[in-house]
């Protein structure tokens, strides 16, 4: 159990404090409820590019002062952007925590970006895309899979964005985006570690209290329904071994079926005793690796399967064998013991995400920021425990069909 206090400022900034004195450290985690799904087509990648710009100076901490002051205080900082959120964090010795309030409040209201820094960070982000996506074997697979599963919802494009869209973005977009999404009423602050609720209140009021809210963010999205066809594509890539990627549209992380789907993915591929590893990797030598996952998103995400075939193995055969495991569960279900095993693995994994101030702040901020429910971290284990063998069988027969899925094959270029 994680215990915490929480309060809101008049301007709508929500603050959660999880005090623990284990180490003289505090993680300061400021999450804005904006991600790549808030972008418009033609401007993909902008939420993430904007995250980079937040490190490039504000009125009272211009230039590189943000990093320099934090480093001088013995602090570390970074940020990340997902489809749903952008999270900025500092980890500081507790006696220096006021600095994080000063710096984060300054860039919430007084960001100051020049054309030069904008162009520089646009280059950096394009290199980030090359390094993580374009220059990696199978690096484009997840974005291609999403673009097959979704045709309407903005989850169809990648967080990192497309290069031509990034090149089309301008400094004017920066200003618009900033005013639309970066305000106290669209943000949640989580403090984890050696800080009291009283001090958190004092500093939050002092540094964020005077900012005006900017009103509700327009959150209208077009959703995709169930897939009613099979969408297939073959990609010839710079890879040595063929691989398949398969996606099914499923549910959001707040849907009652989310935990059953997550546990189904674990039954298939979590650990050396999982069904995929035992059958496809170890006993029958069809796959070099094979995995299943349920995406954790605010809106309905993808349940995915992927496998890399061993040399000389038919990719179609591997794909069919992997899917047959889901069909077998839909037909015959799973044993109580197998479900108990993956529940125990999930409990251990929840516990490991609560260790360390940075980890726990990040974990809490997701639920506090997206759903105004930080206590969700304490409800995860009871919710996992409630899943029954019937639930597993039911989701296996509900969400998976050969005529409602996307399938990608990655083949070595020399086969083209």
């Amino acid at each position, binding site marked *: 159990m994680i215990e915490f206090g929480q309060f809101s400022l008049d301007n709508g900034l929500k603050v959660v404090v999880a005090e623990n004195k284990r180490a003289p450290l505090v993680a300061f985690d400021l999450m804005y409820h904006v991600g790549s799904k808030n972008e418009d087509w033609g401007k993909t990648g902008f939420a993430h590019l904007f995250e980079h710009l937040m490190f490039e100076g504000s009125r009272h901490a211009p230039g590189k002062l943000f990093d320099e002051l934090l480093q001088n205080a013995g*602090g570390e900082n970074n940020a990340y952007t997902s489809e749903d959120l952008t999270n900025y964090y500092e980890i500081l010795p507790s006696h220096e925590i006021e600095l994080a309030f000063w710096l984060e409040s300054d860039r919430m209201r007084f960001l100051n970006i020049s054309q030069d820094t904008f162009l*520089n960070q646009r280059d950096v982000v394009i290199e980030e895309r090359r390094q993580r996506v374009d220059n990696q074997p199978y690096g484009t697979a997840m974005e291609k899979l999403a673009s097959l599963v979704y045709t309407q919802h903005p989850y169809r494009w990648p967080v990192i964005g497309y290069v031509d869209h990034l090149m089309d973005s301008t400094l004017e977009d920066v200003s618009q985006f900033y005013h639309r999404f970066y305000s106290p009423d669209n943000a949640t602050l989580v403090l984890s570690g050696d800080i009291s609720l009283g001090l958190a209140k004092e500093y939050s009021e002092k540094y964020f209290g005077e900012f005006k809210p900017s009103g509700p963010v327009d959150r209208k999205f077009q959703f995709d329904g169930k897939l009613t066809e099979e969408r297939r594509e073959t990609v010839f890539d710079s890879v040595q071994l063929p691989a398949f990627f398969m996606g099914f549209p499923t549910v959001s992380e707040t849907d009652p079926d989310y935990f059953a789907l997550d546990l189904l993915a674990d039954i298939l591929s979590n650990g050396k005793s999982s069904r995929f590893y035992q059958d496809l990797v170890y006993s029958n030598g069809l796959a070099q690796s094979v995995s299943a996952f349920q995406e954790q998103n605010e809106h309905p995400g993808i349940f995915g399967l992927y496998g890399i075939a061993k040399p000389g193995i038919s990719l179609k055969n591997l794909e069919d064998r992997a899917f047959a495991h889901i069909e077998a569960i839909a037909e015959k279900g799973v044993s109580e013991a197998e479900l108990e095993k993956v529940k125990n693995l999930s409990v251990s994994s929840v516990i490991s995400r609560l260790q360390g101030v940075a980890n726990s702040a990040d974990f809490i901020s997701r639920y506090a920021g997206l759903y105004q429910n930080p206590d969700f971290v304490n409800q995860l284990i009871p919710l996992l425990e409630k899943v029954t063998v019937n639930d597993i069988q039911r989701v296996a027969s509900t969400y998976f069909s050969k005529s409602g899925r996307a399938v990608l094959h990655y083949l070595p270029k020399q086969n083209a």
Partner: protein
Amino acid sequence: MNTPDRNQIPKGKTPDPFVFPQWQEYTLINGLTVVILEDHTFPTINFRLMVPAGGIRDFGIPGLTSLTAELISRGTVTLEGSAIAAEIESYGGRFFSGCQWDASFVFISSLSRYQSRALELLAESIRQPGFREKEVSFLADQRLNNLKMNRDSTSWLAGYVSNKVLFPGHPFENPINGTSESLTKISPGTVRNHFSRWFQPTGSLLIVMGDTHPDKILPQIETHFASWCPEPWEPHQIPPLPLIRHNQIVIADKPDAVQSSIRVTHHGISRKNPDLPAIIVMNTLLGGYFGSRLNLKLREEKGFTYGVRSAFSERLFAGFFTVATDVRNSVTGEAIREIVHEMKYMQTHLPDSKVLSNVRNFLVGRFPSDFETNEQLSQAIMDLKLYGFDEQYFTRLRNQISRITADQVLDAARKYLNPDQACIIVAGKADDIEAQLSEFGNPVQYDLTGI
């Protein structure tokens, strides 16, 4: 409302002193050291066994130590690996093993109510490993395929060729997981011999962390481990680093690459080097943190890369120094020029006093966050034991770093950086980059067949 003066940078309060967490330590009669870190925050436990036999023992058969180590968690004389995996995973745990260059480790975790059985499985695995034919050939085959797949990663290729250039004829020359030649040769017999020669209780360390009580767990450790007898063995000599040709310019060609993976590299230092505090500060200034000279130049000024880092590898026997980055093809030559320039700059200029104090404060201030979780603490204690440091080591290192002067930084750069003799390795599209590299010497292409 208390309105802030935003022109006033907040001053920190008085820091708490750094205190390395306490642990309890015991030595069994066979020489095995046992460390217990009790922590009841969460109902979990893990055991980590460290054996001072790393990849450096791979004489003649690359990957043998690592394969031997990994096999320890894949079956005993009486239990199949699959059965052990199913059992430990049903306890919410993990069981795996492997090796680094200086040591091997076996790790097992579980929800704490299963701790006795987890300990028993660990003990049986290290004392009576199965080394079955099927497991040996399965793992060798997995590794052969991984090698094949790695050929499409420019960063892997750059690291691979760097080791070939820096360490010819030395165990560090080869991937720690083995080569396509060695992996086809290793038999269960080879593994058994290697295991009985190097995997001994003497010098080994068992770290227990989590929701347990020494009164309860220590007698069980005695029961399972005290009779693990050391076999007589002769320590073998580790060869010194080879003499190599300096200034080699080597390309690993990947014709469809859209970025070049660059390594500017030379031989490095041992983890036990007495100048380590100054070297840490010097390397941090050069390329060890976000605000480093290299990152500010190549990323924040030029926009060539997502990031660049420099590092000294930490090994018992001297490893290497390297600057590593990925840049778009067209700026490969210019990026290398900047890297060499910054290395030379460190050797010819005293660091700015404000920047130096900033880096010292950064390193000292972030110290506690390296020792926060059980995982980090166990890694730190393993390092103390492996490299023969006393328990004050980390406290002392932090104090030494806080006092490093500009002169010491300059001395460390002159003594331990070697830009004039460094080798330059680039994995990328040769057609685009070869001409750019000619200003540094005569680039040669590395023959990648047979990896």
